[in-house]
């Protein structure tokens, strides 16, 4: 990297920050100087307008545009449901939808179960913080980084050479033949799913662990005095106590899983029958020059996310009413 480039980049960032600070400072200052009568209105506008305008231009308008685009062809003429017909009839596209459904069933389920078991097993044990950090760490890692980490683990070498991927080495230790994991369907989809589980388990574990700690100790002790075993205590005391947190964890992970893009992009780029909706959306809209299809896929994604979010909000509402 040349020093000139570096300086130029620093100048750009500095300039961006300075302009932003100046604009915000200026409008706050002007709002203070507004005539007394209109002051409250002006101040309200100053505080709200930047966020509202950005959301209107950058999120609401585009979302509406995309929805229209989903019913249009390349030239921009409305063509009805053709794009959706493509999604649900073309074998390749159907495969994408099925893959997405497999993802959204496996990832929340397994992440939550593993995260919950782990949270319970290490609860109040020695070194709890350390053990938590180990499993939580993948949360900080980018999906791209995780993709590389796991691609290395799945790496394939012909049988006559030494393996450098741990998974194939284990297969050989067990007496098997090395496999081209990422190119062998249907197992490759599940191997990608493992990466997402690896990342999301830490999230489930941290949230559920905090929730477990919120259960009054008296309840646990009382159950213990009643002579219940660990499993009974888990089912009758712990589980009801963390029910709403489980709902939040499962729904949050489901939404993240529906939108998964980076993992698929980095590990297989959607080849070998591993594509999912979010990846296909990118491929169609920005690589294959089929914005209509891309928009339709984005809309399908939205429709899939919608019920999960509504359910989540309703559970949280109920929970608030009880409190």
């Amino acid at each position: 990297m040349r020093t000139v480039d570096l300086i130029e980049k620093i100048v750009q960032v500095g300039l961006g920050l300075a302009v932003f600070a100046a604009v915000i400072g200026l409008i706050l200052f002007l709002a203070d100087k507004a005539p007394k009568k209109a002051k409250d209105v002006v101040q309200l506008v100053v505080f709200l307008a930047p966020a509202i305008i950005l959301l209107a231009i950058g999120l609401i308008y585009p979302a509406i545009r995309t929805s229209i685009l989903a019913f249009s062809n390349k030239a921009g003429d409305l063509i009805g449901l053709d794009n959706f017909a493509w999604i649900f009839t073309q074998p390749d596209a159907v495969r994408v939808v099925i893959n997405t459904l497999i993802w959204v069933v496996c990832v929340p389920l397994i992440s939550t179960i593993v995260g919950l078991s782990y949270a319970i097993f290490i609860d109040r044990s020695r070194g709890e913080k350390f053990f938590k950090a180990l499993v939580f760490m993948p949360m900080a890692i980018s999906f791209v980084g995780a993709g590389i980490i796991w691609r290395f683990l799945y790496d394939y070498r012909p049988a006559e050479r030494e393996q450098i991927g741990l998974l194939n080495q284990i297969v050989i230790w067990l007496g098997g033949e090395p496999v081209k994991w990422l190119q062998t369907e249907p197992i490759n989809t599940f191997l990608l799913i493992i990466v997402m589980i690896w990342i999301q388990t830490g999230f489930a574990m941290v949230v559920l662990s905090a929730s477990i700690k919120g259960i009054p100790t008296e309840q646990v002790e009382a159950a213990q005095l009643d002579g219940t075993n660990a499993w009974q205590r888990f089912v009758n005391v712990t589980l009801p106590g963390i029910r709403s947190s489980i709902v939040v964890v499962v729904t949050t992970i489901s939404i993240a899983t529906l939108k998964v893009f980076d993992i698929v992009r980095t590990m297989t780029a959607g080849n070998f029958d591993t594509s999912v909706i979010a990846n296909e959306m990118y491929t169609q809209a920005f690589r294959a020059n089929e914005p209509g299809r891309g928009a339709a896929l984005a809309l399908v994604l939205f429709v899939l996310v919608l019920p999960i979010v509504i359910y989540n909000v309703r559970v949280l509402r109920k929970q608030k009413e009880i409190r």
Partner: protein
Amino acid sequence: MTSTPVAAPIDTDVARPGTTKTARVKKRLTSRGATIVSLIIAVLWTLPTFGLFISSFRPEEEIKGNGWWTIFANPGFTLDNYSEVLLSSSASSPQLGEYFVNSLAIAIPATIFPLVLAAMAAYAFAWIKFRGSGALFVFIFALQIVPLQLALIPLLQIFSGILQPFQESVGDALNIPTSNYLQIWIAHTIFALPLAIFLLHNFISEIPGEVIEAARVDGASHGQVFLRIIIPLAIPALASFAIFQFLWVWNDLLVALIFSGGTSEAAPLTQRLAELTGSRGQEWQRLTAAAFVSLVVPLIVFFSLQRYFVRGLLAGSTKG
């Protein structure tokens, strides 16, 4: 502990050592089986990263010739991989230095902008009374359900149709360089706003009303209240969100792919890494080191600020 007499209840004939009253809840579930399972999980979760980390310090022929678990049979330590990916200026090397700077140049403003704008909006929703406040707030909260995929295509059109020509004419007039940073910053800011406004509102609305009213009675404007009272009191919430947003932007690939233009001028590390895995997927001596270059910043942020990170996470997911 040692002097306490074992007062095991009579009906439990299997009086395990340690299950006295004093052993309390502490050991309730940490049976041997549970310990073993949690150890296995911990190892499984750490091993992949560990293997890559070890490998990033091995010479090329070792990485490509044998597995990292044979490190004791095939020892070798080198920093060449790191110096190669970061500093080498040959055309075939990843030249990550530049992308590292880009990642920072994208993530810092893309954290500050939404933070400030969301704090202002959250303050307005919490402490400025106006008609339709509640409905508007719920509407913004509801915007979280719009997947950003739904906004990408038109947003790119807006940027290339309006923002870029405008930026260029301003840049020409003032003779300053322009780049794609601006549109990445704006995109990240927009996508962060709904959640940020919601989270910060939760916190800011809980600041005691007397403090704010007292200041208002003394003649302080909303601007002064915001800068002198709200911001200092909301620092913990702001910190939590800032960490969250920073990691999100640093780790993002999709927004970068669409808005950065893909050159070393503005593309972040994640995009470069994705490119390398695509084009040089077997160059493990580079990929391992490159992956760790991109992981270093999030891991530092994560381990030094884990408390805030967890707090932000919990606020985002369990608060209603």
